[in-house]
């Protein structure tokens, strides 16, 4: 269970949000919406532990995430604006390296299968710089199919994806929620999920 209590975020001399509370239980989905610059990315980075909240705290199973450290890292998968995809590496290499970093090493054949389901069949060995923006994002999203973490934090993942890819990502999220996972997703698109329960958090500007 993820709990946020009285969160406040100050960037520079601007207060982005304060007194933010929410609770996320297994199988629940939280959509973050709000205008540009309202603190969606900052909130996600706070939940990751990359950014310390200026007030309040975030708890995982009752313990402050900063006291859990590496134990908490085994629970979360974060996918940000910057996709952590290397242009010089192929899709296959990118996927295998990023899953090795996550602590789940996968075999060459397994990685190929996943890339094929992500619609990248035949392009596994091309350097990623030759792929389109949407295809790069598919490579980054392939990581979600490998990891067995419980909390997914996705920042604007649906941008520059076509309809089939959006459907693919949503089905990944539904499977994840169905298995008792949790997801926090910031996006402006309408999301209709058939599994899991849905919450929406609107950040004001």
């Amino acid at each position, binding site marked *: 269970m993820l709990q946020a209590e009285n969160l406040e975020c100050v960037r520079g001399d601007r207060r982005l949000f304060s007194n933010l509370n929410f609770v996320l239980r297994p199988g629940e989905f939280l959509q973050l919406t709000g205008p540009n610059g309202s603190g969606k990315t900052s909130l996600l980075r706070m939940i990751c532990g*990359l950014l310390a909240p200026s007030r309040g705290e975030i708890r995982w199973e009752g313990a402050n995430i900063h006291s859990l450290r*590496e134990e908490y*890292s085994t629970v*979360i998968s974060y996918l940000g604006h910057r996709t952590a995809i290397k242009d010089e590496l192929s899709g296959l*290499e990118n996927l295998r390296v990023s899953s090795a*970093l*996550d*602590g789940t090493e996968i075999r060459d054949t397994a990685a190929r299968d996943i890339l094929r389901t992500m619609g990248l069949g035949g392009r596994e060995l091309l350097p990623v710089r030759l792929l389109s923006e949407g295809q790069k994002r598919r490579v980054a999203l392939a990581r979600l199919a490998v990891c067995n973490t419980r909390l997914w934090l996705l920042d604007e993942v649906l941008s520059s994806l076509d309809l089939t890819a959006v459907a693919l990502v949503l089905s990944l999220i539904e499977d994840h929620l169905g298995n008792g996972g949790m997801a926090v997703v910031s996006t402006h698109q309408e999301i209709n999920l058939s599994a899991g329960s849905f919450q929406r958090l609107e950040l004001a500007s």
Partner: protein
Amino acid sequence: MFRWMVRRDLILAWRRRADVLSTVFFFVIVVSLFPLSIGPETQLLRSIAPGVVWVAALLASMLSLGRLFANDYQDGTLEQMLLTPQPLYLIVLAKVLASWLVAGVPLALIAPVLGVQFGLSQDTLLILTVSLMLGTPVLSLIGSIGAALTLGLRGGGVLIAILVLPLYIPVLVFGAGAVDASIIGVSPQANLSLLGAVLAIALVFSPWATSAALRISLE
């Protein structure tokens, strides 16, 4: 995981070979400029050789520092590295090892060829290589602290030099000292031992300092 990180960085370095080669060429050219400008005075060349080669190695290794974390920072890989269950200490160590294999080892291997221009004897050339093999990893390790601290700053390149060059001084003194000792016919062992000691200390403490600096830079 450690193996994967080293392998990844080596593949990336191979696919951007121009960057790596420029470091080596810089080293070769700077060292070669001295014999050309001073002329064939064997005695003088021999006495300045240790200093020249070592200072050139220092500057060449500075060149590659900016790249150590900058690319991973820009595309978000570094954030992911901070969020992995793996200790950041090991990730930093893997990255530094890869960067040393790519930027440090070639310098040490090519140095004897350049040393011939200064009329150094065979024994001295061997000591030169050994001292560089011991010293360049320290340069990479200490440099990684500077690279992590200046991450994402404007004009970071100059700042790295100011931060890191003073810390390079012990390496320079012991490294050049070892080669000097071998030229005048004294045992270089004391200097090499000290260099090894500096390496041991840097190996333990600098990845830790670098990890702390990375966490601050990414906040």
